[in-house]
């Protein structure tokens, strides 16, 4: 599995560490129900999955990667920072 890092180009997935579902939004701390959802519950879908990968052995950027979890095909990787800004 190779991940196309916007800075470093196509790199082996073993250079990255994985941090799961990137579609979740952190709720405000006073909303206990929403916080429980955010911390513990996952859609865990088949097919396309948006997820965080951190380029630990590269540029240290956080990426949002779109990957097909049924085939391991990596579709797209963008900087999480750019997405958050837009």
């Amino acid at each position: 599995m190779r991940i196309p890092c916007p800075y470093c180009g196509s790199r082996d997935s073993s250079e990255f560490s994985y941090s799961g579902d990137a579609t979740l939004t952190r709720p405000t701390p006073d909303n206990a129900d929403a916080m429980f959802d955010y911390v513990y519950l996952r859609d865990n879908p088949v097919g396309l999955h948006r997820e965080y990968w951190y380029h630990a052995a590269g540029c240290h950027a956080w990426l949002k990667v779109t990957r097909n979890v049924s085939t391991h095909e990596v579709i797209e990787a963008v900087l999480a920072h750019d997405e958050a800004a837009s």
Partner: protein
Amino acid sequence: MRYSLTSLLRQTLTGHKGWTPQWRDAAPKAEYDIVIVGGGGHGLATAYYLAKEYGLTNIAVLEKSWIGSGNIGRNTTIIRSNYLLSENISLYELSLKLWEGLEQDFNYNAMVSQRGVLNLYHSDGQRDAYARRSNMMRLNGADSELLDKEGVRKLYPFLNFDAARFPIQGGLLQKRGGTVRHDAVAWGYARGASDRGVDVIQNCEVTGIDIVDGRAVGVQTSRGAIRAKKIGIAVAGSSSRVAAMAGMRLPIESHVLQAFVSEGLKPIIPGVITFGAGHFYISQSDKGGLVFGGDIDGYNSYAQRGNLPVVEDVCEGGMALMPAIGRARMLRNWGGLVDMSMDGSPIIDRTHIDGLYLNAGWCYGGFKATPGSGFVFAHLLARDEPHPAANRLLLDRFRSGHIVDEKGQGAQPNLH
């Protein structure tokens, strides 16, 4: 047909022509008292104990493929109860006790072999952690022994004791741990359940769960609708998908775990060894193949196959621990879908939907739990209350903060 020396002799004299199929390949009926979704080890064991312990036999086990095609036939066959937390030890120790009597109980040769499980330690800190674990195990009724380096050397003289980076200081030994022939476990439970009247139905995928007024009343399947008074979900890596049919989101991610087997060799490894300084564990099957594995690949996956970095990592661990392994050729490897829970421990509970019960979150270690899991899930389904050995492995523990996190990793499934 009961298996015994007499039945073997009788068949031998008649040319082995009288053996009958071991279980009925049943067709679905329109309605059951209890439907179990998933014909893996846990689903089949649940049906078996429902029939045997609770006298409930109007039961179907629905398996989307053939029984034994999931993790029950893909795991590396290790059984043990060497956990740290009492919530887990009580279940896994119940399970280990059931393994000890299983073959007599279900009259089937599952090759239960208590050859000992040894976890190596390589630092003072790790020794202290294992001493603590060993004490916890004893406090909770499991057996354990802390070995020093010479103790380990007596068992396994060929290990790389004085490796510059990770010298072996000793190990935590559970003598009652060992290995079991995994697919025979599926067949033994299927046969035992089927003999008592349970329908084991293969090639029957559950595609929907029917809910009326907050109550689960049946399932839609690839072989038609089936009504049920109670529905138990035991689908391991597919837990989130099946729960989603009832509108539920679970504290679970599906990941892939790989296993490896070498060519057949003469006996070299009498027990099970785990490397404490990396992700590697190994045993030798009775056919002679070295059976080994390591960590999960570490990302969400439904692919039932892994990638090369883990292959490399596992082989490096093997070489670090026992360099002799470098002379053996790897024959095959494969992957299975594991249901990684948010605290690394299983969930056996009712759901908020009446009549719908969940057995999930087994991570990479649910084979050893098969008899125990089936036993306590049967109790839950029959009595509508958790079995005492599993009454802290409930679904709402994540909300209430009573998580059961052996490693203290937090809600990060790929780190458990």
